[in-house]
């Protein structure tokens, strides 16, 4: 069984985003970029399913040439091969979903495991859109995945608790944080990943319209909070709480 894992290159989650002075976006020059954390979890989950019937893991990334690094990371973790759909243009979730749909048509995977959201634009859309385009079942925010024959049972994190759904294959899963703890690639595996196959494509190869629908007019910093006062002890804190009417 083949699994497709889309991985996005984003600003590393440890880096504090800085809004550019001209209001056009967040400054990405000379900052550390990494695989979207939820996508690492997706790659890890695909690898763990290898004892459960998964035979091939294909990692896909859509974006600039440097996304190759992200794909090499996926290969070093344990993916078998990779596809880079190279474009310098910003591709929105709808465009990404359309490209992924075309790749699904060509590759015929039984599962696509995506991150629940990319931590740059925080859209949380692509997996659901791909499922909609495919007419396939979707299990978003997965915290547990059990593969059995031609179906997959997924426990999902929902407001207030968890929910379990059973989907027929092919199906779409998006990962939440508690699904697993992604592995670090070992040095030998990083070396080995260099010789794993990485196909280079362009959006034109798939004949898909990915023209953006949204225009970003400006990007600003949120209203700043400033540090307030420090109180010396609980007596002072109690007094403040009483003054706010929170405590009697």
């Amino acid at each position, binding site marked *: 069984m083949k699994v497709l894992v889309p991985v996005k290159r984003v600003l590393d989650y440890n880096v504090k985003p800085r809004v550019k002075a001209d209001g056009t976006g967040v400054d990405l020059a000379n900052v550390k970029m990494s695989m979207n954390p939820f996508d690492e979890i997706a790659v890890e989950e695909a690898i763990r399913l290898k004892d459960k019937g998964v035979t091939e893991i294909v990692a896909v990334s859509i974006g600039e040439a440097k996304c190759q690094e992200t794909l090499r990371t996926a290969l070093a973790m344990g993916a078998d091969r990779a596809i880079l759909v190279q474009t310098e243009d910003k591709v929105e979730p709808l465009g990404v979903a359309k490209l992924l749909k075309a790749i699904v048509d060509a590759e015929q995977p039984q599962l696509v495991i995506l991150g629940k959201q990319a931590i740059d634009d925080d859209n949380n859309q692509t997996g*659901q859109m791909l499922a909609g385009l495919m007419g396939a079942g*979707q299990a978003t925010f997965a915290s547990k995945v059990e593969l059995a024959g031609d179906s997959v049972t997924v426990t999902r994190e929902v*407001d207030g608790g968890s929910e379990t759904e059973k989907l027929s294959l092919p199906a779409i899963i998006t990962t939440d944080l508690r699904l697993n703890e992604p592995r670090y690639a070992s040095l030998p595996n990083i070396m080995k990943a260099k010789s794993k196959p990485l196909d280079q494509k362009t959006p034109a190869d798939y004949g898909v319209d990915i023209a953006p*629908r949204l225009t970003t007019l400006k*990007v*600003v910093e949120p209203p700043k909070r400033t540090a307030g006062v420090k109180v010396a002890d609980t007596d002072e*804190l109690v007094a403040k709480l009483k003054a706010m009417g*929170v405590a009697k």
Partner: protein
Amino acid sequence: MKTLVWVEHDGKTVKDATLAVVTAAAKLGDVHLLVAGKGIDGVAAEAAKIAGVAEVHTVDNASLEHPLAETVSPLVAKLMADHDAFLAPATSNGKNIAPRVAALLDVMQISDILSVESDNTFTRPIYAGNAIATVQTSDKKLVITVRGTAFDKASPEGGNAKVIASDGAGLEQSVSTYVGSEIAKLERPELTSAKVIVSGGRALGSSEQFHALIDPLADKLGAGVGASRAAVDAGYAPNDYQVGQTGKIVAPEVYVAIGISGAIQHLAGMKDSKTIIAINKDEDAPIFQVADIGLVGDLFKIVPELTEKL
């Protein structure tokens, strides 16, 4: 513009999250609601009373007992032939359903809006709320999820909308089935509507200590209980307590962060709180940069003392 709002409900009552979405929708035009479910007459009647709502569309069908995106989204897509915008709350259900609707309509969703600037322009947070983008869409139909804390709640009373039943024919087939759920029973105010929240972090050290320290303080303040991801991951608190970029977004009157360092992913979920109080033994903890009131010290000494004095 005619808008269609997906009503989040539990089969019995309309969930609060819906009311903020109604406020956002009203800024765009006429507000119509969709109540989809099984045995939903009561919910529909309640929905029809929400102030400012013109029509309530209902679809009552056994296959809609649980709101699977696979069954709800084709229904919405059909109703969108007569509407210009679809809005859902940015709750786990809303986030699950809306993008699938967008794909069926071939439009880009605008996620988690904070404001309506015009009929095609909105603001939304990106990078865990470290930046706010103003985005304009060129799509003819809009699909939007709404951040509940960013809009006032519409009044649940005062409206008198027309209720229109649509049929749910063809809904029975689905590639997915609902198996079950475990929803925690809440003894305290729900986080997304609590006026006061007491949140504990990794520093609490164990589930026992978390509950022994945080719960009594929360009870004294009539507060909801939250947690950092580190506390949840360590098993000190259940999943649905998590506040942050990937947990709940909250904006209470008062947020008390206890033994929480203030990572950007945590701040993303609570920095719009009116007053932030932080208790941390490290005076350089980033949480103090956003706290209105800070108390530096050992929580194991401070929290029991505080609870005692309240």
